[in-house]
């Protein structure tokens, strides 16, 4: 009789242990699955972010070429581009804050490449703490227009989005 009772107790305890193990396994499996999903989502979001930031940067009215210039492409005025690169820095908090609101953790540079192969590179915006390791990079073609010489420079806008 006592033995039967002991066996029944053992049964109950082992069922409890098995249930606990199943719950723990479920949590671990669910957690791993969620982490994997989030990783995929994060990569997707970063890619979308890079495109979104490129669209925003390309659409910035304040650096566009004058309406008198019709380049037929995304066109930046050279002097406006230089001006934005000088104010979108942490030393100019009023302006940096505005551009941080737009571009968040990213870096946007415009590499002027043709006709002058060694022409300059202008950093339009740079996130102050850009030491993060995970970066996704996108490239978009733009025209930089110099209004005094009336010269168009074919350029590549490089967008780096930090995680």
């Amino acid at each position: 009789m006592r033995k039967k009772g002991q066996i029944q107790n053992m049964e109950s305890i082992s069922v409890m242990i098995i249930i606990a193990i199943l719950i723990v396994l479920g949590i671990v499996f669910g957690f791993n699955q969620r982490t994997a999903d989030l990783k995929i989502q994060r990569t997707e979001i970063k890619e979308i972010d890079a495109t979104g930031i490129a669209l925003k940067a390309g659409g910035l009215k304040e650096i566009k070429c004058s309406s008198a210039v019709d380049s037929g492409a995304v066109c930046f005025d050279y002097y406006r581009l230089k001006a934005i690169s000088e104010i979108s820095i942490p030393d100019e908090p009023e302006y940096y804050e505005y551009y941080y609101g737009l571009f968040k953790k990213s870096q946007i540079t415009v590499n002027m490449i043709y006709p002058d192969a060694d022409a300059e590179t202008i950093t339009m915006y740079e996130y102050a703490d850009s030491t993060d390791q995970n970066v996704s990079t996108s490239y978009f073609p733009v025209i930089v227009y110099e209004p005094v010489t009336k010269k168009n420079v074919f350029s590549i806008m490089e967008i780096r989005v930090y995680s």
Partner: protein
Amino acid sequence: MKNENNKSISKKGQLEISFNWIFILLAGGAILIFFIFVITKESDQSSDITNYQIVKRMDSLLAAVEQNPLVMKDLGHLSSKIDFACQDGLHVYALKEGKNNPELKTQLVFTPESLGDARLWAWTKDYGAPYPVSSLLYLSDSKTLYVFQKDSFVITELYENFADNFTKLNAEISFIRNMKDTGINKYILVVSKLGYQALRNNMGSSIRSKITFVVIDDTNPSLYPGKVAFYKYRTAAPYSIDDNTPGVDYESPYTSEEMLYGAIVTGDKSLYECIINKLMKKNVVVDRINTMRLKALEPKFSSLDICRTFMGGYTISVIQEKTTRAQGFIDDTNDWYIDFYDRVKELERTRNEMLRQGCPTLY
């Protein structure tokens, strides 16, 4: 002896039964807590994701319209409801199930106070002062009705240039007065001062709680710059119109058509001013960029070159004055919006002269 044995067996049985119950309670409780935890986490996450998606959607919509301005876009049916408000000077929105109110930091989006449970439309316009500043996005839904007073020529013209796909109506005072509730969530009545006087005490009680008057002074020879007034009915008895509370300013300034349409679409003074404040901040940024550009351009021309005169001190001082006026645009004890408008016109004239002289232009 037999009796004692029987007693101990029945005690053991009781112990076993109660142990089983304790076990069931503990295990069941653990499982229940686990699932409650998972469900709560999931619902929190889904609400955060929805919030994130809405901001992203608005962001990408704005980014896309920056590339293709002057567009009208059908955004389909929005099943949930979004409320927009100005809280402590911040432009925020709230989903019904959302816990926090995310801020629309840089997005220049004019919307009524509430959107959703209806078909959503987006309309965009480019705003310049006078150089391009930003694209403005106007969002509205099929259950927000904009009624423009037909008896006023100026307001009828506004109606004609207003977004075609927004739910709009051009009607005479007598028609507006007799309007009945047809399931519309919000009625924004765009009327003249005279029209307002004729309607303020004569609107049907069934739609009073849904009405906002946007009153435009159509007696001025020019509509710009001007002030627009917002009046609503009180939400408590006696439900009369709120247009005479001492110390309350019902008017807001505007200097362009884009701003005036912003006032009409929002139909709310605090929401309108919140977005205008953001627009003025953007004006300050753009002014600074154009000032720096002129300063960089000036040395490129000889002192005898006519172009140099346009790049120098006078134009820069006009831009700087405009910046100061932009910073006090809304809090205008000095009516700085008029000064702001004058500086914009002055820069427009300078630009035309630059163009005439073949110089690099201001914009």
